[in-house]
Structures are given as C-alpha cells and as structure tokens.
C-alpha cells in the first residue's frame, strides 16, 4: 500500500488526460475559428479582359483604362516590351496622380509626389510605389488582375 500512495491513481490520470485533450482540442478549434475573423484572401484576383495587345501604345505613352471601381488605371509598355498596369491612387495619402507623357512620369497634385514611368517613387513625400496590377497577354489579348 505504502508504495502505491505515491503513484497517480488511475482515476486522476484519466481525468488529467481528458482535461488535457479537451484543452488541446478547444485551443486548436479556437485557433482555426479565430482565423475566420480575417476574410479569406484569394491568391490572385480573377483576370479581366481589357484590350487587344495591339492597342497598347508604344513605350513612354500610356493607355487609360478603368478598374472595377471606375478609377483610372494606366496600361503601359516597358522598354523590354513587357506590359504593366499601374494604378493612379497616390501611395502617399490617396489623391489621383496624373501621367505626364513628356516627362515620362507620374505627378501627384496634392503634395507634389513624383513617380517614374513604372510607378516607383522619385521625389516628394511618397515612399511606396504606385499599385501594380498583374497583367498578362494571352493570344494577343491583354488581361489584368484587378484587386
């Protein structure tokens, strides 16, 4: 008897085991459940046909198209021929930028932010580039994945 007293009884062992399993399971459920607080992010938004590749102007010029919210977006051709789609919402505080074909750059009227022809910040307050939407050409048609 004396030896057995020090051992954990069968009853309390089972109680601890089930309590442990219960907390483990509920913790796991809570972890997954809390994940639902944040909406699922799709990897890549669906593609949208915007125009024919032949309609995209030469390097340095921009084709004005509209995104799903009706906002202006520029479709342009890089020097290496790749097509890029650049949003016009300034990365500083959200005004709409203008494209200046002569200077090949974007300018923001609000706080004089300037971006180069590919939307990277050059001068002024913006520190992040303009939004880029994934663009692809399939069979001569241009598709843009608008977020």
């Amino acid at each position, binding site marked *: 008897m004396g030896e057995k007293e020090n051992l954990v009884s069968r009853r309390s062992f089972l109680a601890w085991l089930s309590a442990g399993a219960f907390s483990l399971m509920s913790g796991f459920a809570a972890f997954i459940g809390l994940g639902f607080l944040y909406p699922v992010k799709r990897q890549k938004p669906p593609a949208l046909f915007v125009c024919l590749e032949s309609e995209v102007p030469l390097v340095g010029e921009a084709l004005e198209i509209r995104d799903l919210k*009706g906002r202006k977006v520029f479709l342009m051709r890089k020097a290496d021929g790749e097509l890029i789609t650049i949003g016009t919402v300034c990365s500083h*505080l959200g*005004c709409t*930028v*203008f494209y200046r074909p002569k200077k090949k750059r974007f300018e923001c*009227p*609000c*706080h004089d932010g300037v971006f180069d022809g590919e939307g990277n910040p050059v001068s002024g307050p913006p*520190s*992040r580039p303009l939004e880029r939407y994934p663009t692809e050409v399939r069979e001569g048609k241009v598709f843009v994945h608008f977020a």
Partner: protein
Amino acid sequence: MAFITEHERYGQFLRSVHQWGATFMIVFLLLHMLRVFVTGAYRAYRWGAWIAGACLLGLTLGMGFTGYSLVYEQISYWAITVTSNIITSVPLVGGMLKHLFLAGDEINTATLSRLYALHVQILPAGIACLGIIHLFFVRLLGMYMPGNQKDRDEEKNITAREGVYHFFPDHALSEIAVFLYLVLAICLLSLLFPAKMGSPADPLITPEHIKPEWYFYPFFRLLKLVPGTAGVIIMGLIAVAFVLWPILDQYVFQKVDKVFKGRMEVSLLVGFLVILVYLWWAVVEAIG
C-alpha cells in the same frame, strides 16, 4: 449647398456670413493664443486653461474641416480622402478609425451624414464642454495679470482713483461695441466676397491645383516636405507638444533657462521659431 447658394433668397448671404464668421473665429483664436503665449499667461500652474484652450483650438479646426468638407466640392472630397488616410497611420487602431470616420472603406453617401453629425452635434457639444472647463480654470486661478509688481501696484492705484471696472455696465458695453463692429465687418466682407460653389466633387480626378483652407497651409507644407508617414507622425507630435506646452515649459525649458542663468528664455525662443516657421509656410503655400 448649391440650392442655398444659388437659388434661395438671401441664401448666399447667409452662407457667406457663416463662412466669414468661421474665418474670424479662427483668426481670433490664433490671436488669443498668441497673446497668452507672449505674456506667459499659461505659467504659474495655469496649465488647465491652456490645455483646455489648446483642445478647443483643435475642435475649432475640426469644425472648419468638417464645414468645408460638407460643401462637397473637389477640395472637400480630396481633403476627406487625405484626412482619412492620415487617420490610417494612427498605430494599431488606424484602420478601424478610418472606417469609423468614413462609415466605410471609401467615401460614400453615409460619409457626409457622419461629417454632418460631427459638425452640428459632436464637435459643438465638445466645444461647449471644454469651453466651460476653460472658463472654470480661468475663474479658479483668476485672470492673469501681465507685468511685474510695479505694474500691478500701478493698476491698484488706478482702481483706487477711478473706481472698480465693473462687468456690468463697463465690460458689457465695450463687448457690445466690439460685437457690433464685428457683425458689420462680417456683413461687409460677405457682401464684397460672397461664398461661391467650387467645382463639384469628382472621385475620379484630383484637380491639378489643390490646397486646403488657409489655416491648414502649414500642415499641408509639412506633409509635402517630410516623406511618407513620418510627416503624419511629426504632425501628431507637434499637436501633443502644443497641448502640453505649459508642462514642457515648466519642466524642460525653464530648466534650460537656469543653465543660461536667466539671460534668455528658451520657451520664448522656441515659440517664436515655431510661429515664424508657421507663418513662413503659410505664406509659401499662399503664393505658391
């Protein structure tokens, strides 16, 4: 707004008076603060009045902002956009605050109702409460008397000779006189430079030349000069320093004064520097 301005009888006049009145209010607030600052009236534990007053200035600027946002011109639209993005840079809760401010993720029909509620209910209520607190602190510690002991003795002599300056009728009469002049000035300005409607808000295009109202020019300049979110953070720090100025003065500047053995007043120096930069930036934006 367009109906009031362009159709209703006397509507434009009414709007103009509203607008000029607001401008006057901000001008006089700034002048009042300048006087309090220059005379050092916030010292000697008159912190409460200054802090309440600084918050009042903030609320008044908020009234100005919501006021011109509600006109829903281009300048309104883009001011709301920029402000909402400034709000986003508040740490942790920024996104939530922006949502609260805009009633959505972007400017929508509910945004104007929200701004309207701010303009006619929440901010005025805040101004009334803080105003009472402001006056309470003034009564608690008494009016600040500028000058040294000699001036104060002089003052007592005048009072002894000519009798006490009563609130009624002495003070009330001069107040009424000033009030009448102000009403006249506002009416004249409203007739000469009436409020007009700017180009209506267009969510798709920011106009090429855009500026906020004049009293925001210095902040506008600051945003242009300091890149990224740093500008917003500096703006926040300036606001905090401004509100807590008397405390800064007592525990920092006056300590530094001791190092110079009272040969100069650091707080005055810093203050004047700030005022100069403020005016400079305002002028740069005004002519630029």
